[in-house]
């Protein structure tokens, strides 16, 4: 079996992550994508209606997990951490914020993967994990 040749740069070394981060990232992004789609459907029907307490708890749980990754410079909205339940955020508010988070999660992912080659060809994108080559999708943002 040919060995994967790793050519990590200094930049990549500073962006090293762990396998647990990758697993957590995958969970957060997939759940957030689904939640955003569900709320978008609600938002089309009644954009100004407040999000239910149950859904908002779930949204805040997603945001709290995402905030672990999205520290500056990846922070989506300056000064925003979680939704305030008392403020009764609307469906459209929550969709807007979740979409901002999804964009920034992709930025974060793009900054934590690099391209490798196998024997000089067969390029592939993998996560920046020292000693591991977990495949990652092609980056979609700078």
């Amino acid at each position: 079996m040919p060995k994967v040749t790793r050519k990590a740069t200094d930049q990549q070394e500073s962006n090293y992550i762990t396998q647990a981060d990758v697993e957590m990232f995958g969970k957060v992004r997939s759940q957030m994508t689904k939640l955003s789609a569900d709320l978008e459907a609600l938002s089309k029907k009644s954009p100004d209606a407040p999000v239910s307490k149950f859904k908002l708890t779930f949204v805040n749980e997603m945001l709290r997990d995402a905030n672990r990754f999205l520290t500056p410079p990846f922070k989506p909205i300056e000064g925003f951490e979680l939704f305030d339940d008392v403020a009764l955020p609307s469906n459209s508010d929550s969709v807007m914020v979740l979409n901002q988070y999804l964009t920034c999660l992709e930025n974060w992912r793009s900054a934590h993967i690099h391209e490798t080659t196998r024997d000089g060809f067969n390029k592939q994108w993998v996560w920046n994990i020292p000693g591991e080559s977990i495949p990652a999708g092609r980056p979609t943002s700078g």
Partner: protein
Amino acid sequence: MTLVRPRLTDHHGILVAQESVDFAIPFLDDDIPLYVDPFLLWKSPSMQETSLHIALISAFNGIGRMATTGRKRDARRILIELSECTEAGLGQARNRVGRRISEAKADEIISLFESIPDVQAQGLQHIEAVQLLVDGIAKDRISDFTCSLLKSFLIDFTMHNCKKTGIPTEKVAIENLYDPARRHMTSEVVDLPVNPETKAPILLIPKRWLRFMPWINYDGFFDNAYVKLASGVAPEGRERIDVLAFNRHNFGVVKDYLDSRQKTALDCRNDPLFRQIPITSAKTKWAAIKKLPTGTGGAADKKYEGYIEQLLASLLYPQLDFAQGQSRTDSGAHIRDLIFYNNRGVDFLEEIHEKYGCSQIVFEMKNVREIQREHVNQLNRYLVDHFGRLAIFVTRNPLPNSIQRNIVDLWSAHRKCILVLTDDDLQTMVTVFESKQRMPIEVLKRAYVDFTRACPS
């Protein structure tokens, strides 16, 4: 402290929502506009309540039989004494003083046990049947007879609930207590809550026994049984007196009607003490409010106040029980308020009770384009006694910055809190009332939290 439309619980500083207790919370200067319907006991799945119904009927028939066995005078006196139960506080009497039946009316009731063979032999199966046989006996009287005959149970029920909710009681003599074993009236000294002004004892009535109209009633009989009688059977006359006379001579018709009511017993439910308006009605009212111009032209202010009163009473239920709407005049200006009991059912209501001393919450409605300083001053002057130091403007638009600063200054100087609900807030309240995703009162909580955040720390 003078409360608006005081209730027994609020008077004693026990702030519970009507929704959260088993009994109808009595008013101190007014009756509860509902009646005890004995049919609700008959149809109850609870053995205790069906037993109470049996005891009620047995006691009533026992009084009837007294009359036919040589104790007519006693029976008449007992019926008269049982015909009013002032301790229950049900009905429409604003001053809570009802009147007993006359001797002639008591004799009419007694005559049923003498002149109708069926009643003479088996007695009545439902006390409500008296409405269909004797003129002048209606839902209020049936309710009073029921409460009087079940007074012993109601005393226990009242004592239990007073202990549970912390309502203070006093040793008080209860008169007109019927002893079915010895068939005579007696009195007893028991611990019951009393009216603080008159010192009259108060009995608590289970909510589940109350209806606006008894399941068996004269109008129902007339519409569903009497008018459907084959031609030639029913007499020509359709006056109440003709119908009652016909019934006394044709008791089978009454029995058939009673049977039909028993067969549809599943549909019989108690009436709530407050009925929320339906969602469609709330949306219609909100649509009408949105179309109203600001100001007084075309009586827009009166219409605005009417719609808001109906909307808020429903939107804020059951967290806030509506007390009443009332008008006042300040500096020549007519002002309409809505008063709610502060039941402390939600965390922030507890906080405003503690911080601002609000036993009742006042909403002042202003159909104006912009709240002026004078409006704030008028409301400020009103913040005394039971209203504590918090009130709520219901108005069309957000406050101008200068007025916003004004109310924050009022808080800084006197710790008085003035909240504002605008059209946008009402829109949200109506939306969540429909979607059920949130409680409309959370919009009020948001206004409160926003205000506290705007105040200097």
